[in-house]
């Protein structure tokens, strides 16, 4: 093994993820409880997927804003549509945030790997679709994650390529269940987050969150924990029969 490692590099021979690496706490109790690591799993690639408008982008940016208060973070904007001002609106620190706007998917993956190796601890990759990138780039990204104990989260999209899916540590399904209204205005989004697939724990757990937008009340913007989902709610979620609800604030 050592000879192979010396000859072809550390990437070719490596052990599985370190189970003791722990997690990166988000500070949102229900969300942290979804992971056995009590936080976003370090050294692994995670995916928060969902339909367009499900809230995965907002959730990702709100998480990025929380992390940017204490860690260097990066957002890889594959669609070049994200407004980094949202990070500031969610109470984040833009001074700790690097924004990458790649021209090609390969550039985005390579940038994420380089920035994680350089010291970025939380890397958010946002795209509405995830085209195939081959096997090497996801493998190298995961190797960089394991080496740096960083966290990488893919946000958005209904599907991911098979070669990426094989590298995912946890898949979270995001679903919008309603809007939060204030004085007749849409002031936030209600969403449910389910563990669709996990390499670290049995899937099936879920939580409900509310993300308050920065407009019209910028001071309250951020994630609000609405608690874990009960078994009956979870069964509704899995059959996808729960109608969209409008919840007054």
């Amino acid at each position: 093994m050592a000879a192979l490692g010396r000859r072809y590099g550390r990437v070719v021979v490596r052990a599985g993820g370190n189970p003791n690496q722990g997690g990166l706490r988000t500070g949102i109790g229900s969300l942290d409880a979804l992971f056995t690591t009590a936080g976003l799993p370090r050294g692994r690639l995670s995916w928060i997927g969902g339909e367009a408008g499900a809230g995965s982008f907002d959730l990702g940016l709100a998480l990025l804003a929380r992390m940017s208060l204490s860690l260097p973070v990066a957002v890889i904007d594959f669609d070049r549509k994200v407004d980094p001002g949202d990070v500031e609106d969610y109470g984040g620190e833009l001074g700790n945030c690097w924004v990458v706007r790649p021209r090609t998917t390969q550039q985005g993956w390579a940038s994420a790997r380089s920035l994680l190796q350089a010291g970025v601890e939380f890397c958010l990759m946002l795209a509405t679709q995830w085209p195939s990138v081959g096997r090497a780039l996801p493998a190298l990204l995961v190797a960089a994650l394991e080496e740096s104990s960083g966290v990488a989260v893919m946000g958005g999209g209904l599907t991911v390529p098979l070669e990426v899916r094989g590298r995912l540590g946890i898949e979270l399904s995001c679903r919008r269940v309603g809007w939060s209204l204030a004085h007749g205005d849409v002031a936030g989004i209600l969403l449910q987050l389910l563990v669709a697939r996990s390499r670290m724990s049995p899937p099936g757990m879920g939580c409900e969150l509310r993300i308050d937008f920065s407009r019209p009340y910028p001071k309250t913007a951020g994630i609000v924990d609405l608690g874990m989902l009960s078994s009956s709610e979870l069964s509704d979620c899995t059959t996808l029969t729960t109608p969209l609800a409008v919840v007054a604030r």
Partner: protein
Amino acid sequence: MNQQVRLACVSFSHLALILAWRDHPELTSEAVLVGSCSRDGRGIVLAASAAAQAMGAHIGQDLRQAELACPEAVRLRADPIRMDQLREQLRAALYECSPLVELTTDSQVYLDLGGRDARWATEAARSAHLGRSVQQVLGVPPSVGVGQSRFVALVASSKAGPGRVRRVPYGAVADFLSDWPVSMLPLPPRTVERLQGFGLQSCGDCISIPLPDLQRQLGADGLTLHRLCLGQDSALISPWREAPPCGVRRVLAGVVEDSESLRFGAAELAERLAAKLSCRGRASGRLRLLLLDEDAAEGVVTAAQPGVFWDEIEPPAPVATAEELLPPILSLFARARCRALVIEIHALDLTQPPATQSPLWAVGGARSADIGRAAARLAQRFGPELVWRVEVRAGHPGDIPEERLVWSPG
């Protein structure tokens, strides 16, 4: 002493000061301080004009102290890139006169004028040409001294004055140095103090004392003093020589044709090269990749040779550690289109590793410098519009992202 040893010392104004005078000719006779940043981040005086030195400023002084000493002095910032260019021009002019050149400081050089050169019939013609060449490059007249040793050449240069050449022939050294004050000899201050206590004020006074008496009073410094007064110091010049190449070589078990496979070994090569650079305390400004297949001939390798892949890359900043070396090495491997049996990576343009002081008090600041360097490498690889830093414009910029945010390259 070898009769062939003839050394020249050329003294001139500091290069930083010369550049300042070029930009501001009106400051030629004014007090000027040229500041630079030391490795620990302090501002220091790199060059001071004669007027500023007369008021108490000196080279190497803390910039704030120098400003207190001469508050009316004009303060300028040194331009290291232009200084490098001027240094190169000066070095080229000096190599015209002698193959052995020592650029001691930015205001003094030594040359070996020993032996004969067909271009100049006499030493006087050669040293005059030397002075004219330096004046042509710098635009200010240098003072040139020629003697049988470093010390004699230095004293001759000091006595010559700007625009003049002072040559000290053999046999006349003792007379030449007789009035040179002991306070200006390269001796420890305590020794100089003792000499002055004995009433010995000049080299002429010292040379009249027998060597055993000097050694009895001053120990080893006595012998040094005796030799200096006779112009017999044995220090020669240390000419600049190109450093031996620094590189790593890896012989593979078999021919590899896939560049992706080659990249797997890049990390190990980067670590080995980093260890070699660390031993020398240097960083590399340029990396060269050589891939040789079984058809490549043994011996000296050239780019045009069959069976040789030859490529070079210049990282955005000098690289020294394995983490810094790996990205450019990977870039080189990505460009490789060749069968490879042997991999060689050479570190070229060795320089001082860049010194940075991370803002440790800021959140994540210790890593910001590393991330910034990684962003610079990504920008070099994929284009400048890839990694961005964003900040919110001050005031009330509104909600439109184009007006609200200020984007700057990462």
